[in-house]
């Protein structure tokens, strides 16, 4: 019973995979995340394309009231200066420690790549942009969720200040721990995509990504990178090497 079931199913699966894999391959281009010939990454890209095709592009994630705010766990890297944490980077960890001891007065966010005015912003510079405060749900891939209030500058304002070139397609983010993320221009220019420096009415706590973290409200929590120090605008999909989700077995696009 078992064998017969498995054989029949496997044959069906292989036939199905081969045909849909062909479709996916044909649809791939260098402006798409790489699949490395991996069936799982092909399926991720298929979901990405399907959601971009089928969902309204500018829909807003639900925003809540202050009374809906819940407790929120801090997970992943909670201190980039702690050598015992998984994603510790020695050089950046030491820099982070120095910046933190000066209350991030010397911290700067660099922005470069496909922009006409590359440069950097201090925390004060970012706080002088019109701020956006949003109470949204953070959905973790693990299965839990939490509602918190985030205050920051829309990424769109910073990209406009840096002069994003018309050819720009993706935005990559680099953090003080050994982590990096990238999102496409649609998410980057979304009104709820902010660079947050405040949380629940206070400065962003260290464990939640001080001094600055990303909020991408229509994707899962791991896209909202903490401890930012550099933004790179690119015309093509940039494989972030060993830092990247596709290589580490995680989906790059996590709208689901």
């Amino acid at each position, binding site marked *: 019973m078992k064998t017969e079931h498995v054989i029949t199913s496997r044959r069906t*699966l292989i036939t199905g995979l081969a045909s849909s894999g062909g479709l996916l391959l044909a649809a791939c281009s260098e402006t798409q995340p790489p699949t490395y010939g991996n069936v799982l990454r092909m399926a991720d890209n298929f*979901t990405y394309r399907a959601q971009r095709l089928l969902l309204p592009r500018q829909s807003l994630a639900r925003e*809540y009231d202050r009374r809906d*705010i819940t407790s929120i766990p801090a997970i992943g890297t909670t201190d980039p200066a702690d050598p015992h944490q998984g994603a510790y980077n020695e050089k950046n960890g030491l820099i982070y420690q120095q910046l933190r001891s000066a209350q991030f007065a010397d911290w700067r966010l660099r922005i470069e790549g496909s922009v006409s005015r590359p440069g950097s912003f201090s925390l004060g510079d970012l706080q002088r942009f019109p701020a956006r405060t949003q109470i949204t749900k953070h959905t973790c891939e*693990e299965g839990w969720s939490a509602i918190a209030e985030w205050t920051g500058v829309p990424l769109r304002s910073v990209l406009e200040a840096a002069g994003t070139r018309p050819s720009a397609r993706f935005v990559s983010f680099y953090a003080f721990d050994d982590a990096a993320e990238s999102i496409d221009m649609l998410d980057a220019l979304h009104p709820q995509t902010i660079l947050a420096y405040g949380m629940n009415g206070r400065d962003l706590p260290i464990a939640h990504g001080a001094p600055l973290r990303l909020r991408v409200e229509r994707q899962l929590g791991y896209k909202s990178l903490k401890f930012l120090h550099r933004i790179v605008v690119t015309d093509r999909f940039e494989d972030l090497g060993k830092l990247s989700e596709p290589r580490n077995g995680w989906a790059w696009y996590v709208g689901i």
Partner: protein
Amino acid sequence: MSLKSSSATTRPGHARWVRVTHWVVATSVLTLAITGFTILMAHPRLYWGAAGNDLTPALIELPISRNYHHAGWAVSTPSFPVGGRAQSVVRTYDILNENSWARSLHFLAAWFLVVTGAIYLLAGLFSGHLRRDLVPRPAELRARLLREDLSAHLSRRMPSAPAGPPYGLLQKLTYCGVVFLGLPLMVLTGLAMSPAITAAYPFLAGMFGGTQSARTIHFCVFVALMLFVIVHLAMVGLSGFKRQMRAMTLGKPT
């Protein structure tokens, strides 16, 4: 069984498209069950409402991985000026998390389920399969007939069932429950957990009482579907395993 379908057009056995869609859906459901369980192991707590996490009360806690009731949390940090009694606590425990492949494989299988399920429903609608073989006739929906079929099953006095339609009353009701209720609910509660899809269609989460409620319902329907699979396989075994398997694969009725 006293209730045989009266339709003269019914060809014995399963149509080819029914056999193909059956096995694609069966493979998808098996894959979804295994990867779904793996995903649940990363956070074996279920909640009701929009949000829920290790720092909020759970509705159900499942002892299915080392993440069950783990105590790896730092001392709570001072509360925030905004948000009442909301706290933030640092997790100091390395949890079991296989979601990298489990999530991607889950959604790969979900695509196969959704596409094949849609093909099945369309073909079933236009071929008359759903109306003729699956949906009970008004005359069949009698408490007495249901009681008779139930007691026949419980006392295992079932006549040797034909391989394929016509189906008995309980069989029809069960298949209808899976096709029209169980699997569609799985898809809807699944979509209700997606941040991109609920941003576009907030009613999806709202109709279940929030994303975490949808996750809890997703789990409960998973349990119901697994019970169906067990009973379904048992019935296949009891009513002539070789014959039934031949009918659902090669399609040759005996």
